């Protein structure tokens, strides 16, 4: 029974900005789904506020709405587009929640929109804890397996003590009912702890109620990915086993596919339970993810939860197996059955089977705790990682070591040299799950821990523990061997050792090891991910390396371009870079090249086997890339390697690749150096006659002090060669400078600290441009909303710039061209300027695709990354204009006056982190980037665009109610006009005494509220923090007093995060918000697709 004929148009909801727990995987899923639906001849309408996604590229859907994903805006889109159906299962929790709201509000019924992919009842059964417990009970009744964790509800200490008996003893989990963010919950291992935790819990709970639950900490954790079609055919696509046992969120665990330590009997029980659950929940057409805990002592199975939608794990499973879950889910949603859908990889077998793997996949999480030093780094059931790397190997050890080196983080690979430290200390440390626990375990093994000791400390399954011992034993053999033989090297390689690790163990240089290895003929082969363990021939070149016998890379005729991706997502290097790589692949494929993608991030579109002609799922280290280049050179001609688009990761390999004779195309490594090296870049600027803020470089405090004294405080200090403003800080006085130098670990003789004059009150400007050696194409000019000093990645910005005139643009163009020429760029360059007074300072230049390329491309309707890729391989701006890839005339600096205004806003992960006392972390913006994602608001005027950006990022701006204002002295002047506007719009102002006084002197009434430090008043007057917690404040303006250290506004800002109240931490943000509120008051905020915006823009250009 083929496709339904009653659906002509489908609305797909994306997942919005990248946040922790909901990342690029939904771009991958959504892009697949949109493509499938479009190829089925359906009109696809898409809403997603995230401009950095491939799915929001205008060619992916028929009508693309970069609008906030709120029920209000989606209703406007529905009213305008009148889709027949809504597919909510591909945009994560955001899409599912929005769809449920629209259903609840009667919007879907009103416009006759059918929910496809999952029905409301199924979504509720999957999402609601109590309903899901009933589902599990029902399943147990039917098949005799599967249960929920046992629990008892208690209202007194007696209940609690009896409850422990009932659950079969300690440890137990205590969860107070109805407390904010799970406050007061904890593990009790004995009666003392129980009395303390439960006592507190009973007090905290407004209903004097705690839930006591049996602890399944330390149990084995598994996931299954299932799909079901309308004929009730069900397949299990993939099983995943967590290396870290229960207690660590699966997103934060090292995970392995397929499951490694289950017999067939136990696996089939999980499968049976999974199938019964998907049926009982009623997911009719689509996928779901089910998590299980298995008691390692007796195999008792507890069903933890299910997600009735495509998830992070399903993206991982798709990459791990070659079975494209999202694509198939979209087909099932429009009426196909599994047996009617061909398996892309074999082409001749159907999708109604279960992939079988002849390799092992390991996923490792990437954390960013260094950006949030206050945050508690213990891993819990709340996800904290910001990205992940996946690796494929022919065995676990190979996959694991590849995954660890894919993380590209100092210390992520196992180290086998140096002192280990004390065994018992290491084992004690390994009890607490945290980033890098596996490395601690390895050190403990080196220090003499036994497998039993490791298991007792970590509950990591003995089979996995033995694999770690195996790795360690090979390291020992490497260390003890008289010489590196082909056999020994081959063995080490088969267990995933990198040349770097071998070099370290042998006290050699990495390139020497490589030379020896090559001389001995020890090189990897490339195997295919084919869904079927070689039972059928694979048509899709999706490769991974292994030190086996036979390579499957086929010869080819066309010249290949190898594109290096950006590796695991991290703060500062996220999906934006993947966007550029994918665009390069599309553009170069159109231009007649065979495209070869290299990346190790399973969340991305670039690692979809459909994106490029060939995909190598490999770490982005020099060794791994050189081997791929070698394999591809053997297969046919290689036109070049593109390093410019994947961010700092491939850029960092540029010089070494060139030194190894690899043809790096686009901007040369020397040019990259000219932009990155302070001295060289200073010369470029001097030659072009461009000013930079006064600066110097230092390797000691004395040197730094001398520079700071000369240029005057405040100064901006940072280590060199970092991305995302890592370690960057504005220093206001000498004492802090001394402390900074002392604390910094990144400073060394060849890595000096950069000390710059900090430009107070400057406007920061970002420029993205293309340069072909002769002609400049100014892609776009973005004016930051926040002043200079806040990392550009965390700052909101507007394009076209809202306060810069034609003269300023002209100066920017001239400067950009001079720098591009001086550096020697062939492709993209991003330059940050600061306008202070009337002087245009150059802050820095990056000769690569920047984070803003997708935003600029969407705001100006020009595919910059595609153009950059073409220029890298020799095309000129003039040719690209003639071809139509770039506009025939004009550029992003000359947008028509009535061009739409686009605002980019950063999304911060504050709510994810708590310190070890369980309090929130501070939300003040600074020079170190900490945002995880971004949204775009687009409209005809700035105010509306800004309001949309806020709605997309944090929820709608309030249009009435109470606004609390408390600003630093230096901001008091600039606060007056926006405050007056708020009053004019009907807001009641609350202020602390100092701010209230200033407002009153300016004729603005404000109610004085108590500071947190003043405590509750004699008559029970609440403090501002209490008011926020009680939900009585609708808007918060709080600018910090200076930076660094513990700040006065901390409690206010963390309360704002806890209560999701909009909180502005800069006066510029306030001014923009006031414009937004004004726009909302004028009403009639409309929606417009990118295609409509582009049409308008193109018409205006011609």
């Amino acid at each position, binding site marked *: 029974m083929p496709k339904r004929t009653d659906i002509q148009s489908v609305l797909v909801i994306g997942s919005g900005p990248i946040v922790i727990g909901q990342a690029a995987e939904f771009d991958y899923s959504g892009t697949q789904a949109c493509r499938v639906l479009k190829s089925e001849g359906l009109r696809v309408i898409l809403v997603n506020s995230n401009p950095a996604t491939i799915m929001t590229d205008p060619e992916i859907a028929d009508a693309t709405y970069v609008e906030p994903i709120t029920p209000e805006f989606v209703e406007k889109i529905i009213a305008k587009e009148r889709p027949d159906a809504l597919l909510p299962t591909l945009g994560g929790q955001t899409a599912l929640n929005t769809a449920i709201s629209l259903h609840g509000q009667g919007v879907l019924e009103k416009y006759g929109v059918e929910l496809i992919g999952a029905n409301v009842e199924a979504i509720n059964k999957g999402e609601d804890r109590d309903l899901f417990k009933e589902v599990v009970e029902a399943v147990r009744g039917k098949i005799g397996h599967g249960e929920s964790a046992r629990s008892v509800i208690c209202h007194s200490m007696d209940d609690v003590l009896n409850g422990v008996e009932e659950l079969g003893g300690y440890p137990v989990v205590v969860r107070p009912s109805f407390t904010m963010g799970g406050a007061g919950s904890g593990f009790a291992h004995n009666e003392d702890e129980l009395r303390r935790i439960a006592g507190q819990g009973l007090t905290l709970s407004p209903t004097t109620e705690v839930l006591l639950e049996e602890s399944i900490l330390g149990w084995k954790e598994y996931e299954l990915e299932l799909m079901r079609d309308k004929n009730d055919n069900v397949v*299990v696509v993939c099983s995943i086993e967590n290396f870290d046992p229960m207690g660590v969120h699966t997103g934060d665990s090292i995970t392995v596919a397929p499951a490694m330590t289950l*017999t067939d009997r136990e696996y089939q029980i999980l499968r049976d339970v999974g199938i019964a659950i998907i049926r009982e929940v009623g997911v009719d057409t689509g996928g779901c993810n089910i998590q299980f805990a298995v008691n*390692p002592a007796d195999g008792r199975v507890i069903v933890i939860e299910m997600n009735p939608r495509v998830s992070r794990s399903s993206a991982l499973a798709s990459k791990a197996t070659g079975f494209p879950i999202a694509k198939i889910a979209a087909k099932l949603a429009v009426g196909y059955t599994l047996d009617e859908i061909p398996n892309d990889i074999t082409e001749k077998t159907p999708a109604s089977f279960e992939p*079988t793997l002849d390799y*092992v996949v390991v996923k490792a999480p990437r954390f960013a705790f260094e950006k949030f030093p206050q945050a508690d780094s213990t891993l819990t059931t709340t996800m904290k990682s910001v990205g992940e790397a996946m690796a494929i190997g022919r065995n676990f050890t190979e996959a694991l070591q590849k995954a660890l080196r894919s993380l590209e983080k100092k210390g992520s690979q196992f180290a086998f040299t140096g002192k280990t430290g004390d065994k018992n200390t290491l084992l004690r440390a390994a009890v607490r799950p945290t980033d890098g626990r596996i490395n601690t375990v390895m050190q403990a093994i080196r220090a003499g821990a036994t497998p039993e000791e490791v298991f007792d400390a970590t509950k990591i399954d*003995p089979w996995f523990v033995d694999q770690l011992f195996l790795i360690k034993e090979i390291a020992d053999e490497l260390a003890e061997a008289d010489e590196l033989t082909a056999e020994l090297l081959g063995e080490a390689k088969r267990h995933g050792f990198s040349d770097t690790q071998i070099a370290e163990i042998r006290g050699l240089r990495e390139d020497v090891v490589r030379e020896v290895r090559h001389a001995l003929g020890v090189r990897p082969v490339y195997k295919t991910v084919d869904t079927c363990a070689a*039972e059928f021939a694979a048509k899709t070149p999706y490769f991974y390396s292994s030190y086996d016998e036979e390579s499957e890379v086929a010869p080819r005729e066309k010249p290949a371009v190898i594109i290096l991706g950006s590796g695991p997502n991290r703060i500062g290097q996220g999906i934006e870079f993947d966007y550029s790589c994918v665009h390069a692949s599309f553009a170069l494929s159109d231009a007649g090249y065979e495209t070869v993608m290299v990346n190790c991030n399973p969340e991305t579109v670039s690692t979809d086997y459909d994106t490029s002609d060939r995909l190598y799922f490999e770490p982005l280290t020099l060794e791994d890339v050189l081997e791929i280049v070698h394999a591809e050179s053997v297969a046919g001609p290689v036109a070049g390697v593109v390093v410019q688009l994947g961010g700092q990761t491939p850029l960092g390999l540029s010089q070494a690749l060139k030194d190894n004779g690899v043809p790096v195309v686009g901007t040369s490594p020397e040019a990259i150096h000219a932009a990155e090296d302070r001295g060289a870049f200073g010369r470029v600027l001097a030659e072009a006659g461009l000013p930079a803020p006064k600066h110097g470089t230092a390797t000691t405090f004395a040197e730094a002090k001398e520079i700071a004294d000369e240029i005057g405080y405040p100064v901006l200090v940072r280590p060199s060669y970092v991305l995302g403003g890592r370690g960057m800080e504005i220093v206001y006085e000498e004492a802090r400078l001394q402390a900074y130098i002392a604390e910094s670990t990144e400073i060394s003789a060849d890595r000096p600290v950069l000390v710059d004059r900090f430009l107070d009150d400057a406007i920061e400007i970002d420029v993205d441009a293309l340069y072909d050696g002769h002609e400049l194409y100014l892609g776009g000019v973005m004016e930051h909303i926040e002043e200079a000093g806040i990392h550009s990645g965390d700052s909101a910005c507007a394009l076209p710039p809202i306060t810069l005139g034609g003269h300023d643009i002209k100066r920017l163009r001239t400067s950009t061209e001079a720098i591009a020429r001086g550096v020697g760029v062939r492709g993209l360059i991003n330059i940050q300027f600061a306008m202070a007074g009337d002087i245009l300072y150059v802050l820095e230049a990056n000769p690569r695709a920047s984070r803003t390329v997708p935003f600029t491309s969407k705001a100006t309707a020009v595919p910059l990354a595609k153009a950059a890729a073409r220029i890298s391989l020799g095309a000129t701006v003039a040719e690209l204009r003639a071809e139509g890839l770039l506009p025939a005339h004009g550029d992003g600096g000359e947008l028509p006056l009535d061009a739409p205004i686009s605002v980019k806003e950063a999304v911060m992960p504050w709510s994810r982190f708590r310190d070890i006392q369980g309090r929130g972390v501070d939300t003040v913006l600074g020079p170190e980037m900490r945002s995880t994602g971004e949204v775009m608001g687009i409209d005809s005027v700035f105010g509306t665009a800004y309001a949309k950006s806020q709605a997309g990022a944090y929820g709608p701006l309030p249009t009435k109610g109470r606004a609390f204002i408390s600003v630093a002295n230096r901001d008091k002047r600039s606060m007056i006009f926006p405050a007056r506007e708020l009053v004019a719009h009907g807001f009641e102002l609350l202020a602390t005494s100092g701010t209230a006084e200033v407002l009153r002197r300016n004729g603005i009434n404000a109610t004085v509220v108590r500071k947190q430090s003043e405590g509750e008043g004699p008559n029970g007057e609440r403090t501002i923090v209490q008011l926020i917690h009680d939900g009585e404040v609708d808007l918060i303006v709080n600018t910090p007093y200076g930076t660094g250290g513990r700040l006065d506004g901390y409690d206010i800002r963390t309360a704002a995060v806890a209560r999701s109240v909009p909180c502005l931490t800069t006066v510029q943000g306030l001014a923009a918000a006031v414009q937004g509120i004004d726009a909302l008051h004028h009403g009639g905020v409309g929606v417009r697709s990118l295609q409509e915006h582009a049409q308008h823009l193109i018409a205006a250009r011609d």
Partner: protein
Amino acid sequence: MTTSTRGATKIPAVLVLEDGRVFRGRAYGAVGETFGEAVFSTGMTGYQETLTDPSYHRQVVVMTAPHVGNTGVNDEDPESQKIWVAGYVVRDPARVPSSWRSRRTLDEELARQGVVGISGIDTRALTRHLRERGAMRVGVFSGEALAPDAELLARVQGQPQMKGADLSAEVATKEAYVVPAIGEKKFTVAAIDLGIKGMTPQRMAERGIEVHVLPATATAEDVYAVEPDGVFFSNGPGDPATAEGPVALMREVLQRGTPLFGICFGNQILGRALGFGTYKLKYGHRGINQPVQDRTTGKVEVTAHNHGFAVDAPLDRVSDTPYGRAEVSHVCLNDQVVEGLQLLDRPAFSVQYHPEAAAGPHDAAYLFDRFTSLMEGQRA
């Protein structure tokens, strides 16, 4: 779990295919020499069931899943009294098993039962070779059995082929035995053991069937002596073209109209009894992920397979046979191979795959219920 374990596995071993391709690795299990037909199995779980499945008699099994032995060996999961595979080929054997049910390591068990294996070879390359060239004779050699490649190749080429091999009697029980019904006894079934797996009578017993397992050489007299409500023909090794005894017995059962169910080899025997041909597949179906469509309902089940031969029956029409009309009830969606037969005028059906599912998914368990319905129908 020490370096010595690693050292001990470093005994060189060689795998030689009849077409001359050679793979070098390390000994696994017993050291020595073994011969058989090289086949690959794609199941990621269930190695214990695979090893003890009598259908693998005289076959050297290549596991495509790289890690084997992770859950050790327990006493519950074997499908018969011993390991039947002639040899075992794995890439990465476990050093330490992990399972609360594990009693010993797989390495020990293979050695104890004298099963010669090899590890550390490129099993994917070997699988692709077998896929492209078909299943073929193979030898695995280690220890004193090692010799120059040419000599080993000659030994391999001197072995008998699987085609034309009559093996049922070698694996089947010599004595009849009874598997009692679990709970209330509802039916009696005579099960012809052509290499039966332990789980099959178990699945029947769970449905209230008392199963009389009879030797492969059982006669119609033996069968009807137990007064069966139904007759079952099991899976088993070898070429169905040689199974003249079982085919004759089945014809007798068909003639009498006793409800009949066959699995795997039993399906091929039904095919031959009905007058269809059987043929050797290029490289067979061995795994637990095969999509089979029930042509009567259109539903797809994910199923466990282990067969090198198949029935040659027309997919597009009902066939006339000496026992009335017959049709292909199940088909493999990967390659359209016949996976099930049923008679339209008599109570008989069979499937080429393994609804008892050990190892494998339980999707096809309904077939045992179909068998009980036939027996019920016959009583009514």
